[in-house]
């Protein structure tokens, strides 16, 4: 009985966390996985994983540009690093663009693109949990 209850709690809380509390977009390039997450209250997180190494950076959402009437790129979210990444890595932080951008386009079908690194362009990312209300949009 206790095992059943524990499974229920894990499933329930796990599912609701994914369902309602974050918009997430993931890019996989070679063995490097980058996950950009937007949470409530204009907070965000960037997680870069490469093999055993993982760097996490706290972000602040500085801008949400809503151009849904424009058909083409509909919503663009921009974030800046709120503090040093963990573990601290000055060389890595220098590579990040000043404003990380997530662009959600709904021309034809919904697609998302992420711009993380200075001098590199946008990369298509796998979007999960997209919620206009979480982004502060009507």
């Amino acid at each position, binding site marked *: 009985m206790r095992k059943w209850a524990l499974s229920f709690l894990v499933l329930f809380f796990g599912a609701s966390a994914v369902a309602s509390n974050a918009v997430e977009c993931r890019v996989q390039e070679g063995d490097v996985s980058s996950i950009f997450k937007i949470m409530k209250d204009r907070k965000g997180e960037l997680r870069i994983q490469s093999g055993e190494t993982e760097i996490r950076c706290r972000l602040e959402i500085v801008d949400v540009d809503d151009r849904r009437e*424009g*058909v*083409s790129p509909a919503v663009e979210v921009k974030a800046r690093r709120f503090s040093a990444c963990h573990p601290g890595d000055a060389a890595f932080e220098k590579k990040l663009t000043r404003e990380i951008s997530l662009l959600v386009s709904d021309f*034809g079908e919904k697609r998302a693109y992420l711009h993380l690194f*200075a001098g590199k*362009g*946008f990369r298509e990312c796998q979007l999960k949990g997209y919620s206009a209300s979480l982004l502060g949009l009507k």
Partner: protein
Amino acid sequence: MRRELFVILSLWMAGPAWGTAPQCADPQNPSVPLCPTTGILSEQYPVAAVTVSDIGGEARFATEYLTAVFRAQGDPLPQAYLMVKDENFEEIKRRLRANAPSPEVADRWIRNLHRPPGVRRYNWQQDYFEAFHDPATGRPQLRRIAQYPSRVMPEENFDNLVRALNQNCGETAGPPISHSGPAVNGISGGNLEAASDFCIVGRDAFASDDYFREYARSVCGSLDNLIEAPTQFLAAGHTDEIYKTIPIPGRQPPCNFAIAIASTRKAFELLDAQPTAPAFSRQPEDMERSGTYRSLCRAYEDLGPQRRNRGNGGPSEGQSLWRLIAPDLAVANMVDHERCAAGMTSRNLADIVRGDPNLGPLNREIQQRMDEFVATFKARVARRYPGCEPPVIESPQLFWGGGEFSSAQAKSIFPNPTNGEYVNGQYLMPDPVNNLFGDAFRSQLSGLGIGQTVINTDFAHRLTGNLHCSTHAIRYCRPRGRTGR
């Protein structure tokens, strides 16, 4: 007998033209240039009709656009199809009457206004169809963009628009434009341009070269007519963001046009030559609602007081309390757009764009790609029309986006002058909100004998479009194989 009378009476009441038949464009008039070998018509041809809506720019934009079109081409006066709400239709008529040079002219202008039933108000008039011509008659033939998102522009809206045009002046629908690849921004009408017998299609983000060629073939007929425009770096991906065919008055087709092309080199030259000039000639409408302006203004804040005031001779700024308490939050929430628009200089703007590891290299590469495009374009033109060397009009523009050309998702920082419309010797252009950029572009047009009408398009620029994107000029030509009347 009574029933027949009723039918005739109903038709008379429903028919928009009976009694006040619109004066339609006459493709057989010898002054009309001969049709090109491609279907799509460039700005080298006269305008039969225009379309515009009020959903973005309200009555103000529609009126300014229509006034400029009617003033530029009074004979034959283009038909105007307005997708507007009732009160704006009345407002547009009132404003047109005020703008017309005489009451008689005002009557003519207003007589040519039509509101096609069953066509929704929609800003991007350029994009859901493209205007071609019927080679047998020279009359406009409209082709629907088959993959244009139906949730924003259902197919029947296009059918209803063509029906209205057909009832008035005999325009028809041609086969839809399509390809078998996924829909991308580049399928839109704004990405399809023309110059004489050439057809210009932007490469955008078409899923493959094969898909791009398939689409271009659907637009251009033969790929021999295709000139590929480097639009991959743009968020909207449309040729009209960077290019415009501008006819030169007094010259004969096919070699009577100039190539207007986005130039970041020209933009930097102008900024460097007048470093203390204001970057903004005025504060754009709804500036705080434009993502690009907001990014630019945050970058301006990032320069800090010393760099912002470098060489300006002005008083130094103090640090705001917000910046001292919470610098990151200050950047996020406390951008002062009024101060940004009033205080930013040419030097500040150049520093921001050149100094950014994304924007600096991107804007340099854009210039290289534009140079290559112009070189290819000129070579193709010279090969087809020996001795023809179209002049180049540099349109000063800077772009904001990611740092890699093929995936930069970039937007023009200021309204882009190439995104305008040419009507009979007059170029209708967006106000670029930067005097240096605007004056430089206009002086090149004046040098070629082309007049200018500057229109505020801030609403469209905020939504990643502009004047050309928000309107559609439907043109006609004189069919080949006929000698005229």
